[in-house]
């Protein structure tokens, strides 16, 4: 909760810098970042639709939600708008959020031809601009509370993963192990995965890549056993190279995958320069096995948030 206010402050500052008056957001990670709201989780892609609106001038955040259940108290019920099957109602809700302010620039995190037309209709004096890059940059460096939330997610992912390790054995299928992960996650109070567990069983060798979303924040790890040591070593080498000022492409590449971790998967480009406070997944995939850790970039280098 404490972080949401900080998220909004950062977002509004970035909007002011970029001259963006209003953000119209369809991506759940972005909506959750600025609002702190916990809405129903759905798997997979979904087409763009305005489900959260941020007004830079006033700091108002309006949300598509029929109820305040799961919505922080900082967002008044008057800022909630219900789902509608008429797309015009959704852009009208966005326009209502910005009523009384001058809107010359509207940032979006995705678009469709229909919504581009409708948004231009309700914001006739505005140009539509890239809101996704803006939020990507804002979300990149985590607050202290963000890191705590990611640590808590990592703890759940690891505990559920331990149930997989304990169950694996002769005749136990990858499907069963995926189910065991989901069941343990639920027992630990978490119902939303970062992705469906990716598990292979080859003879007595098990490779597992798992991740959870706890309160929206991701915790991810990958392990292979037995004989995971050389993979682990490759990850450790990559992690050892992490520190502020390093270009991502100097670490990622070949077999090493690096991406951002936060409110789910976060995009990074090879040209991005690491900063303290960024959280990354660093993984290696080789010879049918994989290893990977969730890692916090610190002033001194990097702290691996996953253990063992």
């Amino acid at each position, binding site marked *: 909760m404490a972080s949401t206010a900080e998220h909004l402050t950062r977002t509004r500052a970035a909007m002011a810098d970029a001259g963006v008056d209003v953000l119209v957001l369809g991506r759940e990670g972005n909506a959750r970042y600025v609002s702190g709201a916990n809405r129903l989780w759905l798997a997979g892609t979904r087409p763009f639709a305005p489900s959260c609106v941020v007004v830079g001038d006033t700091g108002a955040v309006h949300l598509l939600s029929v109820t305040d259940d799961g919505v922080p108290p900082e967002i008044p019920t008057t800022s909630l708008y219900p789902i509608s099957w008429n797309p015009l109602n959704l852009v009208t809700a966005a326009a209502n959020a910005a009523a009384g302010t001058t809107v010359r620039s509207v940032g979006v995190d995705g678009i469709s031809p229909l919504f581009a037309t409708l948004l231009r209709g309700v914001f006739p004096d505005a140009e539509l601009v*890239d809101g996704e890059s803006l939020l990507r940059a804002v979300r990149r460096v985590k607050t202290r509370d963000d890191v705590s939330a990611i640590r808590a997610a990592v703890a759940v992912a690891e505990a559920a993963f331990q149930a997989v390790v304990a169950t694996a054995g002769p005749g136990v299928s990858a499907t069963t192990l995926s189910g065991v992960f989901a069941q343990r996650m639920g027992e630990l109070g978490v119902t939303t995965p970062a992705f469906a567990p990716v598990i292979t069983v080859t003879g007595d060798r098990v490779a597992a890549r798992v991740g959870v979303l706890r309160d929206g924040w991701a915790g991810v790890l990958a392990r292979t056993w037995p004989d995971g040591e050389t993979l682990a070593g490759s990850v450790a080498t990559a992690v050892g190279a992490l520190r502020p000022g390093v270009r991502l492409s100097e670490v990622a590449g070949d077999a090493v995958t690096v991406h951002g971790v936060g409110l789910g998967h976060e995009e990074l480009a090879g040209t991005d320069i690491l900063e303290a406070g960024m959280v990354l997944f660093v993984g290696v995939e080789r010879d049918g096995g994989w290893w990977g850790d969730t890692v916090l970039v610190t002033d001194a280098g990097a702290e691996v948030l996953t253990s063992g």
Partner: protein
Amino acid sequence: MTDRAVSFDRSLDRARMGRARHARLVDAMAAQELDVLVLLGQGNVNYATGARMPDADQAQALHGRAVAAVTADGAPPIVWTSAPERVPPHLGTDVRPSLDLEWDDGAAQLCDALPPGRLAVDDLTVPLWRALADRDPQDASVALGAAKICKTADELECIRRAQAINEAAIAAIEPAVTSGVTGAGLTGHFVRQILELGASGSTVDPVWQVMASSIAGGPYSATGDLVFPTVTTEAPFHAGDVVFVDTGIHYEGYQSDYGHTWVVGGDVDARHREHCQRWLDTVDAVLEVAKPGATGRDLTRAAGEVYGRRPWLSHLYLAHGTGTESAEMPFVGTDLGDEFDASIVLAPGMVLVLEPVIWEDGRGGFRSEQIIAVTDDGFESLSHLRYEAYGVDR
């Protein structure tokens, strides 16, 4: 598949299904005078090509998505994906390395590779929107809706199978629904079941909402109507809780939709039975008119009013379609209104998930779901829910 997997007695021809879907898309493109269809939504990519990427949270799914292009000449589609082994061979699909449309490079590469002509898209990332600006992309929703609204026999079998797995998983966990169990714990139990029973994944965070007996006693409502669904928490169930259940899983990318109402501890009383019976009566009245040629308005009129209100949630619908999306055309009883409902004409192959909600404010209510496919002379039920707990043998 595991040895626990649900077995099916009807055949499913995946290659035939894939060819039929592609042909329907090509026809729909001709009707809309489109030359190229670019698909980013993973349900649409599956529909066009059979390619399905692993389940993931939205942000991960966007990052790892497959992208498809279909052309009006009926040539094999193109798929750009990091998982070529997930593209079935039946269309002779041109499989190419994945493009990351979250960045300008990937968007530009896609743009360069697209055939010329009038182009429609189902969704756009900001980089792709910029890259395609010169091509004046049209909205693909009309063409997609026209192709997808009527299902082939193979598509219906996929939905039937998804629903059978969902129902078997619910049957397996229902004995665990007792006082003290948490919704989150139940979700873990449920997801394990669906995987072992042969589902390809869970579509939505399962809903087990404990209902207050009045709207005012529940969470704040922006519409003044009943709030549903709310997000599952770690709160434990108590004996006597009335729980609205809503889950959805998929098989070959086709969606199930399981809704029901549970009374925790099983102490069903006369009021619960009455609400259930009113729900069944409402569904029966709708089914009475469900046949080719009937309109959505015919269905809403048949549903009538129960306890002085229209028997469905005002922010949702009386019925929705399902297929490669959990809620797709046709929609009936939405805020698009009566004229829109009247424009929906049932035809063989359409699928309707009927989800009336009976609500007697102050005394609670009942919600369940029944899935039907419209046939040549009526309907076939694709779901087989049980109501014995309410003293109804059906």
